[in-house]
């Protein structure tokens, strides 16, 4: 159990969601992909100019393409009009992907000091949970009326 936990959470293990340190602090930054895995890491290395600290234009174009495609997908889903209750969750999922892509790669959070991630994530977590609670409360209020 403890072993699994360590595997999941530590960077040097297989914990791909664990954030790297500031690249400049490491003598030999590991060529690890943004979402982990060796095969991805190889592609990653080629598009990011060696993977050190900041990615290259090829990778940025890729992310830009990704953003465009997702937007297109969203608009297509909108024209579909047949998803019912799945429509909103799917849209929220897609926009979260766009959001994360911009924050992680365009804003360099994936390559930058962890403190920045903590600061931004903390305010996002507080904001989202608090405002979700507010929406929940308003929903309850409506039902009572």
């Amino acid at each position, binding site marked *: 159990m403890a072993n699994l936990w360590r595997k999941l959470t530590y960077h040097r293990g297989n914990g791909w969601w664990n954030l790297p340190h500031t690249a400049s602090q490491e003598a030999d930054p590991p060529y690890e992909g943004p979402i982990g895995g060796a095969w991805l890491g190889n592609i990653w290395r080629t598009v990011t100019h060696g993977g050190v600290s900041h990615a290259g234009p090829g990778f940025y174009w890729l992310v830009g393409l990704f953003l465009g495609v997702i937007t297109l997908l*969203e608009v297509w889903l909108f024209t579909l009009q047949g998803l019912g209750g799945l429509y909103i969750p799917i849209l929220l999922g897609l926009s979260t992907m766009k959001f994360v892509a911009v*924050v992680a*790669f*365009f804003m*360099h959070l994936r390559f930058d*000091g962890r403190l920045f991630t903590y600061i931004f994530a903390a*305010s996002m977590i507080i904001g989202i949970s608090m405002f979700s609670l507010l929406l929940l409360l308003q929903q309850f209020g409506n039902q009572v009326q």
Partner: protein
Amino acid sequence: MATNVTQAPPAEKYTPTEQHARIVDFEDTSTGLNSRKLLMWTFLGSDVMFFGAFIATYLVYRGRSLNGPYPSEILNIPVTSVSTFVLLMSSLAMVLGLYYVREGEKNKATLWILGVVLLGGVFIAFQVVEFRIFVIEGLTPKVNIFGTTFFILTGIHGAHVTIGVIWMAFLAHGSHTGRLRADNALDLEIAGLYWHFVDIVWIVIFTVIYLISANDGPPPGAELLHG
């Protein structure tokens, strides 16, 4: 010019003045992170709450308009999709501009930063036209709660974009005249953080206000109010 910028003198040579400057400007800080960048990230955390409160207000009031025009009658998804795409691409131009500033390729950098200014300007133009059309079609901030929340939220976002465009215009000028170079690319990086943040706020607004709400018609029982 480049001779006196590249190498910082060894540590023991610093005067206290330079020491202070180093602490503020360079990464010689307790956390190893640049203070100005830390300031910008903390500010963005603060702005999350600012936009969060406006978006939450919009969501709370969603579907509560007692009279038209309702979102389904007025929102134009294809047009807004184009402006969304424009803003996303401005973010791409932004990172490319930063990349070429770092690489020292002045002309490419200037071009991409100008691209940010241009795309941002196009986005604002879209928004102005959109507002204008909505007003002509009868949706104003005063007419119902959808108008109120829509105009204030997107208007404040537009104000953020406008500030960003002005900021970027000065940086483009700086890049053109050679003041913005690899050694002070941080100026552009910090402005870029702001720009991307405005972009991600729009990603949320586009989903929440436009795509999700676009089918909202009158709330149940509204026809009783108006006969």
